């Protein structure tokens, strides 16, 4: 089982951002959430690791189940959110590296806090840095790296906890088109390792390169949901016209 979401809704004040969202993602797929800005795709992604709390619905992810429909106790939810986030990593548009820590310290911080021996954390960090092609940057400050390099460090940081699921929130939106390919390579390589990935983007070209499954949102609804074949053969007029513009 990968991710199963049923009837999720979310409102910010009087604005209904997500309306009755249901989908399921099998383990190991790389799913792209596509849509114009304001469609609710980032909010949906942030619910998958509980950075946003849904108002309604149920969610099964990384072998944990959540039911938001009968209200919830915040303290209990916070605890569960912490446990969930150790299994569901996240990569942000603005990388969000901690600027006052070296690349290596950015990587080992969370695992060490959570009880991994420091030596083991360091050797794992070095492995991951090699995997994203940044072995020689372990001691560098984040500010000395290019955007593409910072994003790869952020991916390595998210991988330190060996997550079952990795979420990407517009990972290439702040990058040069030429640099985007660095991130494409890493995501492709990860999809072969069997990790479940969910990527929010509005860049169709980037989406085509990485997706094995696509979900298209418009105005808080899922309009189209299917395999990557849907890029070639869209089922709805709305998705067809989104792909064309």
């Amino acid at each position, binding site marked *: 089982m990968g991710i199963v979401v049923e009837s999720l809704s979310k409102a910010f004040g009087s604005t209904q951002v997500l309306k009755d969202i249901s989908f399921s993602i099998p383990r190991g797929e790389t799913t792209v959430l596509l849509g114009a800005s304001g469609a609710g795709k980032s909010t949906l992604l942030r619910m998958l690791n509980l950075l946003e709390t849904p108002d309604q619905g149920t969610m099964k992810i990384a072998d944990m189940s959540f039911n938001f429909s009968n209200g919830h106790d915040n303290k209990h939810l916070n605890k569960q959110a912490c446990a969930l986030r150790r299994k569901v990593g996240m990569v*942000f548009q603005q990388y969000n*590296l901690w*600027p006052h820590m070296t690349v290596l310290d950015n990587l080992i*911080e*969370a695992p060490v806090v959570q009880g991994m021996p420091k030596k083991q954390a360091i050797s794992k960090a070095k492995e991951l840095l090699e995997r994203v092609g940044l072995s020689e940057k372990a001691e560098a400050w984040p500010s000395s790296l290019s955007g593409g390099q910072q994003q790869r460090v952020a991916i390595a*940081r998210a991988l330190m*906890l060996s997550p079952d699921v990795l979420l990407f929130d517009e990972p290439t939106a702040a990058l040069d088109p030429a640099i985007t390919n660095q991130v494409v390579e890493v995501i492709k390589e990860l999809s072969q390792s069997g990790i479940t990935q969910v990527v929010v983007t509005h860049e169709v070209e980037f989406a085509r390169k990485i997706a094995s499954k696509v979900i298209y949102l418009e105005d808080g609804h899922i309009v189209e949901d299917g395999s990557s074949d849907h890029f070639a053969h869209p089922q709805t007029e709305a998705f067809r016209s989104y792909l064309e513009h």
Partner: protein
Amino acid sequence: MMPESLQEYLPQLLKGLQTTLELTFASLLTGLVLALLFTLILSLRFKPLEWLVRLQILLFTGTPLLIQIFLIYYGPTQFPILQETVFWPLLSEPWFCAMLALALNSAAYSTQLFKGAIDAVSAGEWEAALAVGMTRSQSLTRIILPHAFRRALPAYGNEMILVMKGTSLASTITLMDLMGYAARLNAQTYDTLTVFTLAGLIYLTLTGILTLIVRFIERKALAFSN
């Protein structure tokens, strides 16, 4: 200003140096500990305590340091009940009262400074910490505070210098610090210009040394931002 009078005054003034330095470091250290505590209370929003901290900041940044020193030193003598408590030996001691006033004053300003630095750390850094499964208090103490304190260091350096200069007010409650000896020497010699110029030069030297130390720490602590 005659060289021979310099030779005569300097050893007199330097007798007060130790008190000035002790008062500075004790106040800074106590103020820093309090400021850290206050900052945590404000950042984690502990409700009733938060209001107390805000009141403390209002009172101690809103009134002159000299009034705070006077009230802390002369105030408790008006309440005989206090004289029977275990605090009396401390509260009747000018050194302790001056230290307490300076520490509370510095804590109020430092808390504002630290809180400002924490608020300036981007929300993304908080989210990144939460997203790797840290709790809010782990995120605050392990990621956000260490970053914020580095950012606050240049401003905190100024605060240290203000406290050091503020210790000169302690002479008004009979404490014999650098300023206390200068005032006594002035009363004895009426050589006002020389005595206070010399005292001023000693404070200036202390400020210079403190600035150099802070600069050195800044270079290490802010290396990441270059």
